């Protein structure tokens, strides 16, 4: 990974956390918050290397856990799993396509939510979480795909082929 790419990635992660935790909640309702860290992870899965992307995906999930919920490691695990799934098919995909990126983010959101739900039901006492997750899934998918389409419009998305 070049120094420029590392800097860009670091800035994007910091921006995503601050934007998602402190800026967006003031302006939009909770179900309509995009999962920017998941989008970054999906980007890494499509464009990044396996060696660097795997720990990065786990760390991104961990970062999300630090600012979300009670269960440290929940998103770290689901992000890692989603990364591995996407990475296993990424070589056969046209990773430069913006549309494919949006589809990938939608799939990643679905897998991540499913894994989170399973882990929560298996390991925690959170009655009613399934209903909340199902109720919020559609807006969450839509917002994530919208945010992903905006990312696909960025000039860096076209140019930056060397993330790792």
């Amino acid at each position: 990974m070049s120094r420029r790419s590392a800097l860009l990635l670091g800035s994007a992660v910091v921006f995503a956390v601050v934007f998602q935790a402190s800026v967006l909640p003031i302006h939009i309702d909770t179900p309509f918050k995009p999962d920017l860290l998941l989008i970054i992870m999906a980007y890494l899965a499509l464009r990044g290397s396996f060696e660097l992307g795997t720990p990065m995906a786990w760390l991104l999930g961990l970062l999300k856990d630090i600012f979300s919920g009670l269960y440290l490691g929940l998103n770290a695990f689901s992000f890692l799993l989603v990364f591995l799934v996407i990475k296993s098919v990424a070589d056969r995909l046209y990773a430069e396509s913006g549309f494919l990126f949006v589809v990938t983010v939608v799939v990643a959101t679905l897998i991540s939510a499913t894994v989170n739900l399973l882990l929560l039901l298996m390991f925690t006492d959170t009655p009613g979480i399934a209903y909340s997750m199902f109720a919020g899934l559609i807006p969450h998918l839509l917002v994530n795909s919208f945010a992903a389409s905006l990312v696909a419009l960025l000039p860096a998305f076209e140019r930056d082929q060397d993330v790792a």
Partner: protein
Amino acid sequence: MDLFKKYGFIMLIGTGVFVALIFYSLNVPRNREANVIERVVMTVFSPILKPAVRLSGFFEDAWDGYVNLVDVKRENLKLRDEIKELNTRLVAGNEAQKSNQRLQHLLEMKNTVKAPSLSASVVGEDVSSWFRTVIIDRGSSSGIRDGMAVVAADGVVGQIVKTAPTTSRVLLLTDHSSGIAATIQRSRARGVVKGKEGGLCSLEFTTRDEDVKVGDMVVSSGIGGLFLKGLPIGEVTMVKRGEYGIFQTVTIRPAVNIAHLEEVLVVLRGGYE
């Protein structure tokens, strides 16, 4: 003849001055009337004077306009800056007024809480859509510990779950993992307030024979020692009793407006070691 030649010019001047004096003296008694000369001259000049005045006025206006325009642009920019500044002050003033009202309510709550407490500002929310937590700007360095109760001006907010030196996370009472021992203020029926979807809560483990009605106020029972007794939690909005089952379903709308939470009080009591 020589005399005339010698003093002719002086005499001419003297005569002229004398005639002018006579002319003046003759006109003094009729100073309010126009004589022939005046009338003729005025008549001759009258058609010219009017357009001349108009033209002069036009040039005056044009000149003044130009000079003013030079200043107007500068003044316009200055006024715009002043308006911006005044608007900013107005917004800041309104914000300060609202903040003052909120803090006043919070202070009233602080006085009713019979334990040391610490005010904190909400600086962030949960990044995920499934969980309900907020981040506050006070942490372990301010004496905050995990498990401490958090209240706002209108009632219970939740409890501290994860503390860092300068920030903490608060698990809101609307989160599915939250549980607060509560009682119905009117009938003293007991239960546990748990979070549910849509920013609401439910009163769990309240047996079906307990007296719970829509509109009842739910307050903390103090059981468990986490929350002080009698803090407002919310209002009962729905009660359902099925034909079977031990418990009734009670839905509660939180007293605190979770979506617009800005300042909170952390009750510096209890908490986990």
